[in-house]
């Protein structure tokens, strides 16, 4: 499967992903979120190592929307958790594909590093 926007684009064409984009995709893979929630989620996952600035976040979101990796969703979560003014984003199937491809690429790099002893081999 390929991007809906441009049938001839494959996931590999978008690699390597900018780190911010990858983090956002990972965060959205779990479920729809709004902007600030993505920032919080990313910070939590990385134990505070990665803090997305709002500007970076929305600029990335703008690009990801253009590239069809995510979309703005109409469905809102349950009333109590929702803030009507917020905008929610959802990862697309294409976005999942690209995120997987990037994850595999990163895994490949880690395997390489393990093979040369830069990272201790798993016990």
């Amino acid at each position, binding site marked *: 499967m390929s991007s809906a926007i441009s049938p001839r684009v494959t996931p590999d064409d978008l690699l390597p992903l900018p780190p911010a984009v990858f983090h956002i995709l990972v965060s959205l893979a779990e479920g729809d979120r*709004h*902007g*600030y929630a993505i*920032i919080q989620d990313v910070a939590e996952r990385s134990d505070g190592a990665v*803090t997305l*600035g*709002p*500007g*970076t*976040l*929305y*600029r990335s*979101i*703008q*690009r990801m929307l253009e590239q069809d990796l995510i979309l703005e969703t109409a469905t809102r979560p349950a009333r109590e958790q929702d803030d009507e*003014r*917020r*905008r929610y984003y959802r990862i697309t199937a294409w976005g999942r594909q690209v995120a997987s491809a990037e994850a595999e690429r990163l895994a490949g790099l880690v395997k390489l590093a393990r093979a040369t002893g830069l990272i201790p081999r798993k016990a």
Partner: protein
Amino acid sequence: MLFYRLLLALYPRAFRAEYGDELLRTFGERHREAVTAPARVTTWLSLAGDTLVSAAGAHADLLRQDLKASLRTFARTPGFAAAVVLVAALGIGATATAFVITDHVLVRPLPFPRADRLVKIYQDQSFRGYSRMELSPPNFLDYQRDSRSFEAMAAYTPWSSNLLGAGEPARVEGANVTGSLFAVLGAQPAMGRTLTTADDRLDAPMTVVISHSLWQTQFAGRADILGQSILLDDQPHTIVGVMPASFTFPYRETDFWFPFRFNGGSADDRTNWYLNVVARLRDEVSIQQARTEMSGLAANLAQAYPDANAKNGATVIGLRDELTRQARLTLLALAGASLCMLLIACTNLASLLLSRTLDRHRELSVRTALGAGRDRLVRQMLTENVLLTAMGGVVGVAAASLLVPFVTRLVPTSLPIAEAPTLDGRVLGLCVLVTAATGLLFGVLPSMKLASSASLDGLKEGVRTGPSRSTERLRSFLVIAEVGASMVLVVCTGLLLQALWRVQSVNPGFDATGVLTLRTSLPIPKYQVTQDRERFYRTVLQEIRSIPGVANASYISFLPMVMRGGIWPIRVDGQPEDPNNAYTASLRLVTPGFFDTLRVPLVRGRDVRDSDRADTPRIALISESFARRHWDGLDPIGRKVTLPFSDFEVVGIVGDIKVRGLERESEPQVYLASAQIPDGGLVFYSPKDLVVRGSASPQTLVPLIRQAIARADPLVPVSDVRSLSDIVESDSAARVVQVRVLGAFAATAVLLAAVGLHGLLSFSVAARTREIGVRLALGASRSTILRLVVGRGMTLAVVGIVAGLVAAGWAASALQALLFGVDPGSRLVYGIAAGVCLALAAAGTLLPALRAMRVDPLVAIRSE
């Protein structure tokens, strides 16, 4: 929160509109999380940093999009893009060229430390017609001793020598200088040392400093050059220093500097005016104060030595101000012409961009309807226009860098400026400025205008996309300005061309065709004795005359137009003693046959003969103006001319020669027989220039002449081999360049004006198609339509021409000093210029008029 709103303002408007709320909310959340003061500060800083980076990124994204869109547009309409780039290039190229050269000559400081303190000192002999006369050695030494206004004073005079002891014998240009010269200029050597006042002392060893280029060419740049001994005119000199390549004083060709020895002889003669004097003002002294002091000193000398110095004043001018009025005017004319070009280019540019913007009115209306914000449209149009003008700027700068060396020939070489001007950071900076200003000015206005009018109305059928009243008026005004500016350029070119022809038609006083010249300078100690020199000349001339095809050959001190000075005070018998010593003449020594060789008419009496020798009565020949000035109405033959060293009897009268060049008044001339000058006398004037009239080609003649000279003395170098006609032509060479450059500007300007007019009318006709259709349908004849269009075009042209005539009149009178007597209001030139502009304007109206005539009324009314 205000802080965060300000941060938001950094983003592009579209981005702000889309994500502004979210961003503010996120800022708010982060702000709430930071409880302590340091945490808050950290938050602010990190948010600000993040905003700056991502805002820059967002703008860059937009720019990238706009650039891609622009390039796509250019690919679709390459003709338009090419036209804009070309027009911008013309304007910017012309401006850059003029700026570089004007800046180099008029503005940029001379390459010496604190060069604004350097001045030149001259004798003011206005009573004789020379406001800037060189100094004599005794006067110079007195001024140096008595003046208080200067840190130091130095003298120099250009000096050519035969160089032996380094490669081939060569003739080199150098300067005889006082040791203080390098200190005055503040110049440092590249190797070794410069001359100092110690080198001036009579008992000091003879030293010399050489130039970088001489070191490279004659000495192959050898490292052990210091201490090397060379022979300059058979005198040994030790090389003590090498100057850097950037040092050129007083001329670009000066290759060596050696010290003066003021010891007796001509050095004591107060009337031997030949020293150039340069001095450095003391910090606390102004040039005006220096002038006052020097005038006082000159007055003292005039009192103390009335014979030599009566009525002599002193002139002090800044070293940079040596530029003659003519040269300054030329540069200003160049600057003016460039401004005209820039004006025309800009108006053409504006026209092009305006018409393009209007063309896209419909496209932009559609985009507005689809939701594109006004700012986005303006931004994109702006990017396009700036990109075009930027490309034009690049092409223009490239063109300028090619043009500058050519136009540099307008610059007089008498200023001690080393290299030809180059395009440096300042010029490029100016070009960027001009380009940006042009692009923004002529890009923004149309874009904004258009964007404000782009609306849903534009989509409606039947709405004319014609220009509004004010746009049309603006464009008409632009065309008028273009035509006017072209008129100025054409008129000025025409006048300068007339002046050039006038100069070139001046009779130099001799026939230069078929005459070859070269220089053989006889070194002095060896050829001190007149008889030795005469033997050399006789041997050489005899051999040369026997070459088949040679009609005659002779020697003279200096060629006319090559040496323009060489004047002496004159007294004649039958005239009262002239206390002012006001009369001077151009003095030359000749061998027999000179006047015949150059075909200077012998009006009365006889030429110098072989029989005129040291032991026969001393004779002289005078020019007609000499006879007129001193013996008007009387017979000069047999009368006596008194030069400061002897009396001479006039035996012949010859025609005048334009010694000082075709444009200037020359002093009357007097010629003496070189054989009659005593040993060691008038050394400076001993004949050096050989003239040969022959029918053979120079390729055949020159080697034979060289052989003849080598046979007479193999150590005498031969230099400056030129034809006399080349020398005469180069006298007006600067004018030829002037005319060519201005002519090129004028031709381009007129073409651009015609194109501008064509563009305006085309557009007008296209926009008014419906109106024309209606008129035709209502019974107007095609010729009426034709008259309408042509009438409109020619009216604009005529208004422009009239405005141009007025401006041209003003410009021409400003240039009067350059016109060599041509009437700045010459009706012929103005008439031709108006005719040319009218003709080209008519050509510009032609196509649109034809198109208007061919409008089919039915089609015109129906479509829309």
